[in-house]
């Protein structure tokens, strides 16, 4: 546990802070529980606390950083037993259990602040039952990361349609490589493929209804999605034995050039760069359209801050949340030296990084359909598990599709009841 007693009030003036005018006179203790436990995110969290502390010299800030995985099991515990004033969590359905249980504070009043109008792109993800329950602090794009040098060698260009994607893939297969590497050992990677194929085949609203339990898994739309997926599987587009690999273990295929691309979040970039793929070899494209007229939508998992309902210093907590999302703070914490992800505030600037720029551009300008969180955050945890097991099975034994869908439907009837 680290204590930051603010001392340098002068520093406050040098820190740009949009919503700070009414923030004077905060006092007492602000307890923050954070899951930003890795070195870089931890430094970001500590830096934010320090800067916020400098703005509010009378406020004692107690920061507890908990290991990210442990945090997932502990949050239930501390939200009920010994609630902090601010806590990290995730957007959309992942916060639903706590919202439904009345453990998160309704902070629609914070969102009513005009300064938060710049957060429109993620507002939907923070909204449940028409109210907002937290603020985002970072997100990142998903998309296809591909070997530009292989594409050049084969004379291919970034695909604009699914047909092009398939013809590219055929050319790659003919050259003795695989089109996509994937490691489905821990299931969620297959969820990414399903998200994109389904959002491109049926659109964002359909996808949201499906993960929300309003559309049965035996619906024709779902079958169309799997039919598209099957085309790729039948071509042999994915690496063999993918059920044996974790996502990190699937990276060597793209590094060695045995596979030409990977559908993944932006977090795949640092290890690929370390392994020797510089920006001339690695490039990014948005997953192409499948059904014509379906607005493109993206997966962009969002990490968030919330105020527990049992918090004691809610006034200070609200100020901290506003501070977190302010444009300057967003620019700072999401730059390449810190989180290396995308700022949630539209007025923030993005770090000078090829992939971050493309991602920011894509999410702010080229994702008219909406922004999804990711399959295992959009669907309830139990459903996500059953469904992703089904995706994995489908990728290995596509002929089992009817059985899989019937199973998912039965599970959905039980889970969404």
């Amino acid at each position, binding site marked *: 546990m680290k204590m930051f007693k603010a001392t340098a009030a002068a520093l406050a003036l040098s820190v740009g802070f949009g919503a700070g005018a009414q923030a004077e006179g905060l006092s007492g203790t602000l307890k923050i529980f954070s899951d930003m436990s890795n070195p870089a995110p931890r430094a970001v969290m500590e830096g934010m606390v320090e800067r916020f502390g400098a703005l509010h010299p009378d406020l004692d800030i107690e920061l507890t950083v908990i*290991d990210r995985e442990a945090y997932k099991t502990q949050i239930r515990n501390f939200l009920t037993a010994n609630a902090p004033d601010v806590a990290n969590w995730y957007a959309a359905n992942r916060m639903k259990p706590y919202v439904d249980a009345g453990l998160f504070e309704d902070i629609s009043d914070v969102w009513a602040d005009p300064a938060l109008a710049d957060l429109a792109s993620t507002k939907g993800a923070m909204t449940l039952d028409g109210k907002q329950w937290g603020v985002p602090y970072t997100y990142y794009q998903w998309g296809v990361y591909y070997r530009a040098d292989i594409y050049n060698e084969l004379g291919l260009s970034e695909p604009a349609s699914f047909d092009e994607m398939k013809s590219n893939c055929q050319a790659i297969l003919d050259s003795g490589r695989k089109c996509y590497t994937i490691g489905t050992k821990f299931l969620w990677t297959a969820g990414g493929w399903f998200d994109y194929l389904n959002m491109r085949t049926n659109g964002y609203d359909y996808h949201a209804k499906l993960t929300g339990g309003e559309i049965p898994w035996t619906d024709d739309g779902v079958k169309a999605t799997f039919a598209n997926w099957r085309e790729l599987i039948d071509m042999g587009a994915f690496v063999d034995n993918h059920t044996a690999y974790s996502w990190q273990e699937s990276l060597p295929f793209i*590094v060695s050039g045995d596979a030409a691309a990977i559908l993944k979040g932006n977090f795949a970039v640092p290890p*690929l760069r370390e392994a020797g793929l510089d920006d001339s070899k690695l490039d990014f494209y948005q997953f192409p359209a499948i059904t014509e007229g379906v607005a493109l939508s993206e997966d962009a998992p969002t990490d968030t801050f919330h105020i527990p309902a049992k918090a004691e210093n809610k006034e200070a907590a609200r100020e901290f949340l506003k501070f977190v999302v302010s444009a300057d703070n967003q620019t700072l914490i999401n730059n390449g030296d810190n989180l290396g992800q995308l700022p949630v505030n539209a007025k923030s600037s993005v770090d000078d990084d090829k992939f971050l720029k493309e991602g920011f551009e894509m999410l702010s300008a080229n994702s008219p359909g909406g922004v999804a969180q990711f399959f295992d955050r959009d669907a309830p945890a139990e459903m996500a598990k059953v469904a992703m097991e089904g995706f994995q099975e489908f990728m290995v034994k596509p002929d089992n599709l009817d059985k899989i869908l019937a199973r998912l439907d039965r599970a959905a009837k039980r889970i969404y009841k």
Partner: protein
Amino acid sequence: MFPTPIEKSPRSWQLTYQALLPVALVMWLLPLIAVALFSIKPDADFTTGNYWGLPSSFNFVENYGKVFFASDMPRYLLNSVFITVPTVVGCVILSSMTGFALGVYKFKANLWVFFMFVAGNFVPFQILMVPVRDLTLDLGLYNTKTGLVLFHIAFQTGFCTLFMRNFIRALPFDLIEVARVEGVAEWRIFWYVVLPLMKPALAAMAVLIFTFIWNDFFWAIVLTQGAESQPVTAGITSFNAQYRAAYHLMSAGSIVAALPPVAMFFLMQKHFIAGLTLGAVK
């Protein structure tokens, strides 16, 4: 019944044996070799798929340096010591007394009390998970080293009592009777007659319990959270980043965490092997 010693077997079998032994040994140790190898590799070797080859660069100093100076590992190691040593001491003290009582005194419930200690060993500890966690929470000992130590002592004393009681049973009872005839007080019999004789058993048990507790992972993650109280077995997972696992650092950390029990084993090898058979045969 008894295997023929290898030097008396035919030459051809001797050769096969000598050839197969190293192979079996290497295969047996393969996972450990992989971990040791990875602990000196850079992170990029994992992404390039260089699992078994030579390290692309020799990162011994860097990886182990990070483990010791840029992570909470020293803290976790220290926690492990503070959890393991008090547990060993507590178990030894309690079980030598319970073992003495159950082994020397004849009273009606003797066998039943003994059975209760033994039965404790047969309870699968997973089913105790929720009640023990609630108990430590109610006692205010959740997420403290004390809580973990108390629980380990309570749970390990069952096994230790079995161990001690059987050992004391095997001692010549005449010694105790002679002392009684001489009019020596019971606690002095315990202290001056039985305890010195128990020394080899105590040493053996201390080594066993040390390795048990040092390697405990289950209770460490159930009863503690965070660097201020977790032992090293649980702490290694802190090298799992949000998106990726730092396998090279985890390997280095595992090697470091495994050293104390290994060192303990080699230093006390004699006692350890004695410990595995002591008390088991009467």
